């Protein structure tokens, strides 16, 4: 049943025709990729705010986007715009300010940050109250209307819809650290249904602020290897001690293969399939038997019509937490079997850090670039964990012919989403 334009289940084949990226290695996919394949790290000491007294003082912040003062909404939106603009420009799709499909975007929490709360609280109060009563009284004066964008949950989606003229109601989604992958899944499904010929799928996250850092720290999720920031993120290594928070955005233009070919677009890769499985074990930990992660990978391969032996490379979730990397190893082993030892794997997070909500998008862009370039990005800081015997590409990029990539994304709340990308059939 499969053909160039219909997949093994008779559904429209979906192509990637545009990519955009912002990471701690730099803005633009070429800059990020050049750093990634040469083993550069974007992790550094945090300078955005004082880190005195904090257990973790490093992160992969994005500091060169011309957003000041910092606010999570503002930087997240700016990065998302930059990544989306780059992806649309590459795809050469639509007209100026008219993208012929919906926006599906993964965004971080919308919340008032401490500078906002202090502004709201500190202004002279009409009521002489305190805490929230005082902030409410001050908000009523209409002197703080500029804070609205921080508390509206779809404000970033709306800003991008306005900027790029996407069609219909934009979707703002959250599946925690699997969110970026979920945007791709939603886009893939919409094109397969025939709801649209194209979709703009974006993930963005810029939440390195004091409370953002401290709440992950309190969940014991972060590396505390502050002394040498570039060595802190060490996925699959025996001494790994947590992830490193980072910022970034990734954008993909998805398009039906038919539509892409009809308009003469260059096909960068095929989205072969997606799969997801929820885990009911615990809010932050996987089932000990890995069943949900295994289920997500199996559902993905089934959706993609790809056999385990066809996976040439795994773009791992690989957060560098003891728990994640062990569970990812167990799950991959259960699905790929003996072939796992010989299947190259790497975690981009060793260099760009964990971009959280954006991670699935950022790593999807890297996965497609891997196919395009025939170069496997490395996992830096790799010091093998004997319990996780894997072909972790160390130090620097490795040339390889890559036909098919499995990209994994797992998140708090039992979220597991995987995507398979393939090269365009010759």
């Amino acid at each position, binding site marked *: 049943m499969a053909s160039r334009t219909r997949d093994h289940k008779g559904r429209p084949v979906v192509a990637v025709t545009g990519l955009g990226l912002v990471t701690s290695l730099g803005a633009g996919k070429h800059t990020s990729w050049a750093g990634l394949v040469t083993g550069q790290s974007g992790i550094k000491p945090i300078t955005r705010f004082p880190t005195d007294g904090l*257990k973790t003082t490093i992160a992969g912040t994005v500091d060169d986007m011309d957003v000041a003062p910092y606010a999570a909404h503002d930087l997240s939106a700016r990065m998302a715009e930059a990544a989306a603009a780059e992806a649309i420009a590459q795809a050469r799709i639509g007209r100026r300010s008219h993208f012929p499909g919906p926006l599906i975007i993964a965004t971080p929490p*919308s919340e008032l940050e*401490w500078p906002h709360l202090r502004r709201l609280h500190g202004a002279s109060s009409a009521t002489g109250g305190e805490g929230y009563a005082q902030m409410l009284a001050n908000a009523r004066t209409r002197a703080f209307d500029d804070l609205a964008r921080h508390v509206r949950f*779809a404000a970033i989606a709306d800003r991008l819809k306005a900027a790029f003229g996407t069609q219909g109601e934009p979707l703002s989604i959250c599946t925690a650290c699997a969110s970026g992958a979920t945007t791709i899944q939603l886009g893939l499904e919409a094109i397969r*249904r025939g709801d649209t010929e194209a979709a703009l799928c974006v993930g963005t996250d810029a939440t390195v602020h004091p409370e953002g850092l401290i709440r992950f720290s309190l969940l014991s999720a972060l590396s505390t290897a502050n002394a040498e920031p570039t060595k802190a993120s060490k996925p699959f290594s025996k001494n790994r001690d947590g992830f490193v928070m980072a910022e970034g955005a990734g954008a993909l233009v998805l398009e039906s293969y038919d539509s892409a070919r009809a308009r003469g677009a260059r096909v960068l890769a095929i989205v072969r399939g997606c799969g*997801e499985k929820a885990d009911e074990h615990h*809010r932050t930990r996987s089932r000990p038997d890995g069943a949900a992660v295994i289920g997500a990978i199996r559902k993905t391969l089934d959706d993609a019509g790809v056999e385990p032996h066809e996976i040439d490379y795994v773009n791992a979730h690989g957060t560098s937490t003891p728990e994640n990397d062990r569970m990812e190893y167990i799950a991959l082993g259960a699905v790929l079997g003996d072939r796992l030892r010989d299947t190259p794997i790497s975690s981009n997070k060793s260099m760009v850090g964990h971009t959280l909500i954006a991670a699935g998008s950022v790593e999807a862009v890297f996965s497609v670039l891997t196919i395009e370039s025939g170069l496997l990005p490395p996992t830096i800081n790799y010091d093998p964990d004997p319990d996780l015997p894997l072909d972790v590409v160390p130090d620097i990029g490795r040339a390889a012919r890559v036909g098919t990539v499995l990209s994994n994304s797992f998140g708090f709340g039992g979220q597991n989403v995987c995507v398979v990308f393939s090269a365009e059939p010759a």
Partner: protein
Amino acid sequence: MAESGREVWITGIGLVSSLTEGADAHWQALSSTAAARPVVDGTRFAPYAVHPLTPLDFTKQIPRTSDQRQMERWQRIGVYAAGLALADAGLAGDQATLDRVDLCIAAGNGERDLALDARLLAALDDSESPEHTLNRELAAGLRPTLYLGQLSNLLAGNISIVHKATGSSRTFKGEEMAGVSAVADAASRITADQGDIFLAGGALNTEREDLLLGCEITHALATGPYRSVWERSADGGGIVPGSVGAFLVLEASSHAQKRGAAPYARLSRILSERTSRNGEQSATTALRLFDDLSLKPENSDLCVLSGASGVEPVTTEERKFLETLDQRGFDPCVRAWGSVLGHGMEAHFPTGLALAALAISKGAFYPPFGPTEVEAGYGPPAARILLTCFGHWRGEGLALVEPARESAE
């Protein structure tokens, strides 16, 4: 959606609100000719009014105290309502089916530690180095698991943990439209054979000042004496938020028939758009969506459950839209559930969908929800219900709910 043989059936309802808990209890409270009086607390958060949640014994749906402890109240409300919906659909304990249930959840953020925030704001004012004080106090004062009570997707996560519904989960954000999107995603996937059985819905805990603060920054809250959503424009308009948990089991007709599940109704269509509201008007957009429904006026009867928020000018826009329906040959009988249950934000549309499905299953419509000419007169029997949901600041959604056809595939 209309062409497919796979209908989207509503086979389970879980509803908790300021009035009562459970689908039948809501029908009783809302359908009696003595129109239900809204439960409003106008003093606790004055000058704002809220509809406080009816007292619930959360342990009935969340038996483990360790689970309850790891949730904030919005999550407990949602997990409770989700449990009611699953039980109502006959799925409680059916692990084989639950393992295939996909969750589509509408959610904002969870709750902050208000006492900590207040204490810290005062301390920062007095501090000579506030940034250092902030680091120290947050690191020492934040409850380690609080973030799990705040993350949008942790309502879904807790439903998976407590009720073992573990197909997959997706969480949609964006106030009212998040509810529309969550239901639309489930319905689209059912129709296109991308899934068989879904749990869709959301929850709101209004009884907290951090939520009210977010609403006040955008001046979305009503003040002044309590009035129905249609009667607030003289006071500037606004929502009266209502605590609510609203979940529905949406199921492919073939899947429901196979397991012998009876439908309340079918969701025939669901459409949405996001007007810029600078140039274009919501009424125009909604009329275009309405025309896309291709409703035939067999007679002029049209029951409308309106999600009007009370916020202006969009509530007036919705009135304009409803008034233009006579040009299409319809004489709408309008009921805005926000006037009795309050505004449910992310859970608002799922709440209306639950009320629509209930009415269809009873073949009857609701008496007026407010003493206003917009809702004057007693309605026709509910042969089909148009559901509206105009977001209070963005987005327009319409849905059509009709009786399930037993002959559906």
